[in-house]
């Protein structure tokens, strides 16, 4: 009691002084200029998306005229329907849900296992193998697509979804992300205690690792879903408009599959909508995940 009373004025004094002396500390409140500049950044971020919706609600003819439309027209649902049916966005969305969903579940699961091993288990070559894992992130996907394409043709897998699912079932990024999280979040004593009780490795994973890793697994799941939904190079080589993912369907739109600009914008809007909804619901977690990955990475 007495000590806290004694220290109180002191801290208050220090706070006051530091605010006076410090210029760019972290507790500094933003002034109006900061808010104005941030608003400009926010407008640049959001305007193209809002304008996509505006363009999707207009007609092709109107979009070719000057000045460009600045407010919504009445054709949104007509264009969305055309994108859904004619441009194959309906099939594409379903396919993308299957592809991105499978990749997400498997990446989160396998990355957690591998991340746990790298974070907490002692084994030979673990350091080298971890470095190798990180190093693989440098390899461009272009280096694999020619043989993958040839093998896929040999197997008769053209246009089948497993061709785009299999190569990304687990990622180096996910493994590293989970490792960085578990190094700190999972107390080694907890594993040792379970070991002393005679728990097998799988039991340890199930009862100790997964519960501790759950927050990071959720964030990795979101990041992986965004990545898998937006993956472009390999899907447009492996799949065609007959059985597209969203990005393949959008690519077809861009190369004149349906020449109506308003329908193209409706397609772009539809294909982005699931992720925009995810950002509205889980934006905080996604932001946190990217920042968390950054500090330690």
């Amino acid at each position, binding site marked *: 009691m007495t000590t806290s009373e004694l220290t109180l004025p002191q801290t208050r004094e220090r706070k006051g002084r530091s605010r006076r002396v410090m210029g760019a500390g972290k507790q500094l409140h933003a002034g109006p200029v900061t808010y104005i500049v941030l608003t400009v950044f926010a407008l640049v971020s959001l305007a*193209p998306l809002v304008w996509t919706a505006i363009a999707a609600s207009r007609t092709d003819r109107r979009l070719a005229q000057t000045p460009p439309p600045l407010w919504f027209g009445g054709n949104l649902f007509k264009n969305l329907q055309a994108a859904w049916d004619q441009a194959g966005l309906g099939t594409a969305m379903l396919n993308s849900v299957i592809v991105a969903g499978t990749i997400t579940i498997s990446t989160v699961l396998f990355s957690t296992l591998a991340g746990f091993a790298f974070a907490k288990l002692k084994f030979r070559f673990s350091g080298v193998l971890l470095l190798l894992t990180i190093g693989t992130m440098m*390899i461009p996907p272009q*280096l694999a*697509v020619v*043989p993958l394409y040839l093998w896929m043709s040999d197997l008769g897998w053209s246009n089948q979804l497993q061709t785009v699912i299999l190569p990304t079932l687990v990622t180096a990024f996910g493994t590293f992300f989970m490792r960085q999280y578990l190094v700190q979040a999972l107390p080694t004593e907890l594993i040792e205690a379970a070991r002393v009780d005679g728990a097998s490795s799988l039991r340890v994973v199930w009862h100790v690792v997964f519960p501790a890793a759950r927050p990071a697994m959720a964030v990795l799941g979101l990041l992986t879903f965004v990545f898998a939904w937006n993956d472009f190079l390999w899907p447009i080589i492996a799949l065609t408009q007959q059985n597209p993912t*969203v990005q393949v369907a959008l690519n077809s739109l861009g*190369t004149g599959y349906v020449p109506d600009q308003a329908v193209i914008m409706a397609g*772009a809007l539809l294909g982005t909508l699931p992720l925009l909804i995810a950002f509205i619901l889980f934006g905080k977690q996604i932001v946190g995940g990217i920042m968390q990955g950054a*500090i330690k990475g």
Partner: protein
Amino acid sequence: MTSSKQALAHPASSAEAASGSQPGAARGAHGSGTKPPDPDSWRSRLYRWDMKASPYAFISPFFIIFGAFSLIPLLYTAWYSLHNVQLSSLDTQTWAGLDNYKNLLSSDFFWNALKNTFTIGVISTVPQLLAAIGLAHLLNYKLRGSTVWRVVMLTPYATSVAAATLVFTLLYSWDGGMINWFLHFVGIDPINWRESDWGSQFAVSSIVIWRWTGYNALIYLAAMQAIPTDLYESAAIDGANRWQQFRHVTIPQLRPTILFTVVVSTIGATQLFGEPLLFGGVSGSKGGSEHQYQTLGLYMYDQGWIIGNLGKASAIAWSMFLILLIIAVINMLLTRRMRKSQ
């Protein structure tokens, strides 16, 4: 099982007895492990095996997937780059030696693509990272609704390359495009963003900048928040104003993060593909009528899947990889020099 085990245990213990003393704790523990009744021992053996094997089992999915879908294909790509592989006749692959590479080095389109990749890489990465540092600095203030600001800055990241490029292509259209319409207010004549040399490269870069600035800002923000406050306090006591603090405390502390983002952006810029492909519309793989914005990634796709020369495409892929390796080495040397100079 049991008998052989006991038989094994005997020589060990007799050897121990012969040596006359305790030859190390590890051996003693091992010997005592065989003493308890049998059911326990196979269990403990299983347990030990589990302890030894499980780490490898846990990391194996990654290495299996990486091996099957990256490492082996990467080696095959090298093999194909030394062969004549045509999309139209996949069954006949003839040895070509270094022909594909020679072909590349004497091709104007290859050098053009290399130059474009470099130019677009620079004009998309440099402004992007500078803007991201500035944005991160602003986001680091105490803000009302700070989470909302961060999420808003990240929304372009949710937009796929394809969706973003379709939208920007329309915004940049010559006739009736939003950007030319804005420019006419400041008295600038309509720019033909698709045909002009620098205009198209600028347009393609702007898509990259739009999608990635917020993401990089969050990475810088995370690093800024990890800078200890007392560094600023002591700088302030030394009389540094806010700009000087930013210049002499924030930037040096961010150096590893800046390096990290430069590396990641460089890797991304070397592979740039989707933006120029879709910006070009129907003949996208050519990168414009004069190949103004054909990047290496686009050139590879064009040679491999539009023209159908997969051997040459493989050679382009390996050239990209070699370029990345060179960049990585330069980067490492620079980092080492920076560390030394500090």
